[in-house]
Structures are given as C-alpha cells and as structure tokens.
C-alpha cells in the first residue's frame, strides 16, 4: 500500500483526530488552569487498569468499556478522597496513587501470558483497528464536548482565574466532571494513553508557553485549532511511515511543530 492508499483506507481517522484533539486540548487546558492535571494521569491510568482487567478475564465489548469506566471512577474517587488530607500532601499523595496504578498494570502481566502486547496497545492505542462505529461515536462525543465547552467557556475561564489569582474555589458543575470523564476515558480506551496524554497534557502546556503574551481567549481558541490541524497533519504524515507506531508518531510530530512555533513565531515577544 502506498501513502494515498493508506489515506483512502483510513480516511475516517482524519475527522476523528480533527475533533478529538481539540476536545482533549480544551479539557486538558481547563485542568492545567485549575492545577488538576494529575487527575488526568490518574483517570487515564485507571482506564488502562480496567482495560487490562477485562482482558485478563476475557471480557469484551460493552463489559470491557464498562470496566474501564468503573476502574477510572474508582481511581478518581480515591484521588478526591486524598484531597481530605492536609493541602501540603495533595500532590504527593496523588502522584503516589498514579505510581500505584502504573505498577498495578504489571500484576496482570503475571496472570495472563501474552498480555504484554495488550499493555503495549493500551499505551500506544489501536488507532488503525478502530471500527467505523467506534470512530463515529468518538467524533460525536468530541463534537458534543466542544459545543458544551464553548457554551460554558466564560464559566470555565472564570473558575480558572478565581482559583489562581484570588484563591477562591468555585464548585465545578457535575456536568463538567461528567463530560471530562467520558471524553478522557473514551479517548484512552480507543485512542490510547499516549494520544490522550499528548493532547490533554503535553500540548496545553506547550501552548501556554508559546502563547504566554496572548490572552486567555486567544490561547483556548488558537490552541484548539492548532491541535486539530497538527493532529490531522501528523496523522497523514504517519501514513508515510507505515512501519512506525501511528499514535506516538502523531504526538511527537504535533509536539515538535508546536515547540517550533515558540522559536519561529513568538520568540521575539
């Protein structure tokens, strides 16, 4: 297969990345602004544990995704329980929980022979094996998330400002938690850990440095647009290198382009 054949064969992935990348960016930037990035790590890691638990007991389909949501919920609840400890311990305790979940993955490896391949696919994702049904579900989810986020943009940024500048915590609405949760768990399950962390953690951080002189509105709008463009472009480029892992390549190419913006466009500001 040549490059064009790959694009024709996997054309559905282009709109998936085009919508899921900005949605992950919005969720990640919102978490970064509220100093809750560690929650993304825990949620993503909990999802992977659920995914591997399902494989261990040879559960597939609906039960498998349910287990992902279940383990992600348990992980997130544990993380929130840790917020009851004195504030000085919050970060350390939650990083400890992330480390625990990371190690827990390798417990399954002893139980199930050949699980290494699944662990690997959970990390890098099975993008090329994504069915049309799952791809369309992801596109719809990402579009819904983007609509929800843009409709509530003022409230999100207001909360970020108050938490950082005035040290006042406003309660985050349950719908916000729910949308973030569904988006991150689904993305981890279908797109892999590296794609989710790349667009929800790495790129929001890089753009916060690249656009440091700009406004918050500019950061959210241009960050989301560039994530969509860089992600789709990197996906097309990855078809040129069919022997390489697609998802890590998308993240690496997008990251390199985003970093290059710092040196090319905004360095003098």
């Amino acid at each position: 297969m040549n490059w064009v054949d790959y694009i024709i064969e996997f054309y559905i992935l282009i709109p998936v990345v085009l919508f899921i990348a900005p949605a992950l960016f919005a969720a990640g930037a919102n978490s970064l602004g509220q100093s809750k990035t560690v929650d993304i790590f825990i949620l993503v890691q909990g999802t992977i544990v659920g995914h591997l638990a399902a494989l261990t007991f040879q559960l597939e389909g609906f039960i498998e995704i349910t287990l992902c949501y279940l383990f992600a919920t348990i992980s997130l609840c544990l993380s929130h329980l840790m917020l009851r400890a004195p504030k000085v311990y919050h970060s350390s305790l939650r990083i400890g929980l992330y480390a625990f979940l990371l190690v827990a993955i390798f417990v399954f490896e002893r139980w199930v022979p050949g699980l290494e391949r699944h662990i690997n696919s959970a990390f890098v994702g099975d993008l090329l094996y994504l069915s049309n049904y799952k791809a369309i579900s992801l596109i719809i989810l990402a579009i819904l998330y983007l609509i929800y986020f843009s409709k509530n943009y003022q409230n999100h940024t207001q909360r970020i400002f108050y938490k950082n500048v005035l040290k006042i915590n406003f309660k985050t609405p349950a719908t916000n938690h729910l949308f973030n949760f569904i988006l991150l768990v689904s993305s981890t399950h279908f797109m892999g850990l590296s794609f989710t962390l790349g667009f929800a953690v790495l790129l929001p951080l890089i753009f916060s440095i690249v656009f440091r002189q700009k406004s918050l509105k500019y950061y959210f709008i241009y960050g989301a647009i560039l994530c969509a463009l860089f992600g789709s472009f990197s996906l097309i480029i990855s078809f040129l290198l069919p022997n390489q892992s697609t998802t890590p390549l998308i993240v690496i190419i997008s990251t390199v382009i985003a970093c290059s913006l710092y040196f090319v466009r905004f360095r003098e500001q």
Partner: protein
Amino acid sequence: MNDLLFDLKNISIPLPGDPQKLININLKMNKGDLCLIRGSNGAGKSTLLKWIFKESITQLKLKEKPAYLAQGADDDFILPLQLIEAAQFINKQYSSTSLTTNLENINFQKLLPKNIWIRAWNKASLGERQRSLLAGILESNKGLYLLDEPTSALDSSSEKIFWQLVNEQMNKGNCFIIVYHGNSNHLPKHQELQL
C-alpha cells in the same frame, strides 16, 4: 430614607489558626461610609473581611453580596492572561453588566490605562496587576466593597487615584471596608477599627 447599612454589636469571630481566640467586633456602617481595619499581623483583619463577605446576606441582612478582593495579585498564572482580562473577570463576578461596554470609562482608564491593557499578567508588576483588579472591581457599582490591602503594591500617584475613585463611590452612597496599613494624605473621611 434609612442610611444604615448594618450594625454589628458584640460579634465574636474565631480566628482560623486558633479557634479559642475570638475577635470581638462592634461596627456600624451607614451608606457612603469608609472603615479602615488596622492591626498587627495575625490579628484577624482578613478573617473579619472574609466573615463579613460570608455572612453578608444571613447575619448582616444585606440585599446583595458585597464585592470582595482578597490579597492575591502576587501569584503568577500558568495560562496566558492579559491585564484587561483580569479586570473583566473580576468585574463579571460582581457586576450584572459587562465591562466590555464600559472600557472607555475615564475612571476605569485612570487605574488601567489603555497602553497596559494587553500586558501579560506574568510580565506585569505587582502594582499593575493590583491596578487591573481594582479597576475591574470598582466598576461593579456595588453597595459594599471589601478590599484586603488594595494599595500594598501601588505607587503614591496610583494610590491617590485609588482614594479619589473610592471617594467618588462613597459620594454615590457605596460603602468600603478596607484592610489598610498606610497613612496616605488622600484618605477620604473614614472611621477606623483597630484589631
């Protein structure tokens, strides 16, 4: 017309670090009053301000929440933010009208001149940050303002402008309770509460 805003008599407020220790308060505020809270570190000045904000509707029986500005301009912001956005954010919290329509207001621009509107929060000086927050909050047209050391990073000319704007608001019948350590020549007529 009733000019009384609230009258606190023999109110005891526990200090957060030492709940056994209580601050005893007697404070009467009429419309257009300014009260300066003074006292040594840890005396409970910020605690009193927070308490008034929290109990404004229940114990003080005010019709609306006051505008409250805590100390906080000294922290950096991880995401990009410009000074004009900071002013708009704090204004939006307390005001029913959007500041975007009042950006040309002379008083607003006295504290936050146009030439520093797009300055990045992390690159701005503490004084510029504080001015952006004060410019935003003073445009919210509230009946009561609670400000915690609002002039701590301001230079003398900015502090003069600030007290002029406070005086203008007081003439409209709005009240201020301000934690203040300084001794400016431009202070409007006020009462003091020593803790």
